[in-house]
């Protein structure tokens, strides 16, 4: 069971780190100064979350690895993040609509994880809930600004929704490991969150006068290590310094 919790914590760490890195790419590139700082705050929340999940995984592994080894010394096939997190940051609408979908998911997922019988996972989730509540407030409001803003902002938001939708289904897909942990009261049955998530997405899109996504296609594979080409490029950049100077302290 310990090995399974290690794997589970690593997956959640991968989700957080990859998304956190994607958001950090906006640093100095956001539409204006205030939004730049706000987005990077969110990126830091995710990277902090990744540290906690990796730290716990390292502790469980008991083989001398630390959180940095999990972040910087694993290859693409070993990363198990859901694909939606690794998609390139796109334009600002794409970034914020992805946040909306993920923030809504996390706002349902984390309260359940906070009830986990595993005390460490529960504590990480309890801390993350507060962050996510604020993230959702931001992505919700931006969705309204896009939808009710100009023709261009509405178009870009609509395009982002259509591009992202096929990647959202994977969030509710459980494999054998996740099902077993959910049954044991350690993990979360995310499949059970789908209906509520869809209702909340639908309500916000209606409020923003955006169209509900129509296309029904689904991509998955992230949990098994099958990724889009984007993850390789992201890891290449993110891990380059650590790999060039392993163990360097500063």
């Amino acid at each position: 069971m310990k090995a399974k919790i290690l794997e589970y914590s690593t997956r959640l760490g991968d989700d957080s780190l990859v998304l956190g890195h994607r958001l950090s790419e906006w640093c100095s590139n956001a539409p204006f100064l205030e939004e730049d700082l706000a987005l990077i705050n969110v990126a830091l929340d995710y990277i902090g979350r990744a540290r906690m999940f990796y730290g716990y995984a390292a502790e469980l592994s008991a083989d001398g690895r630390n959180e940095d080894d999990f972040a910087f010394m694993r290859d693409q096939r070993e990363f198990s993040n859901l694909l939606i997190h690794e998609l390139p940051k796109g334009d600002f609408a794409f970034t914020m609509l992805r946040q909306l979908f993920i923030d809504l998911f996390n706002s349902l997922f984390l309260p359940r994880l906070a009830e986990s019988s595993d005390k460490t996972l529960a504590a990480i989730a309890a801390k993350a809930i507060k962050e996510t509540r604020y993230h959702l407030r931001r992505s919700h409001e931006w969705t309204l600004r896009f939808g009710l803003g100009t023709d261009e902002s509405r178009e870009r938001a609509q395009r982002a929704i259509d591009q992202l939708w096929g990647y959202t289904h994977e969030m509710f897909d459980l494999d054998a490991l996740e099902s077993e942990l959910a049954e044991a009261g350690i993990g979360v049955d995310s499949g059970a969150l789908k209906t509520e998530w869809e209702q909340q997405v639908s309500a916000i899109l209606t409020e923003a006068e955006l169209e509900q996504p129509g296309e029904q296609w689904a991509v998955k594979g992230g949990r098994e290590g099958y990724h889009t080409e984007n993850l390789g490029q992201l890891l290449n950049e993110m891990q380059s310094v650590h790999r060039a100077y392993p163990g360097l302290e500063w």
Partner: protein
Amino acid sequence: MGACRNADLRSQKEKGQSGLAAFTQYAIQGTDMSKSDSLELYEVFLRSRRGLDHKHVGSLHAEDPEQALEYARDVYTRRGEGVSIWVVRSNDICASQEDDSESFFDPSNDKPYRLATYYQLPDEVNNM
């Protein structure tokens, strides 16, 4: 002369620039040119602890008060600086002007009798 003018000096300065200068400024900063038109300037006040007053800490641009409040949180409270935030449209602040300082503030310089320390208390008055 003595008129109430708003404190939004930054945005007045921006408006005062020629179109080309404004364009260059925003192009260099890589910022959306429409910023000075669509975003308003807000002044931010923070209360650092319960029981203390709100203090002015700076300003920022935002589209509306709600967004200004969130950006104030993101820009000015990252290191746990506050427990309460106020934001006020800079345009809504009526500020005294440097030109007025002689007539506003100098006249009080020679009126020490307005200060409590000017008066000697009789010995019978204890614990004032």
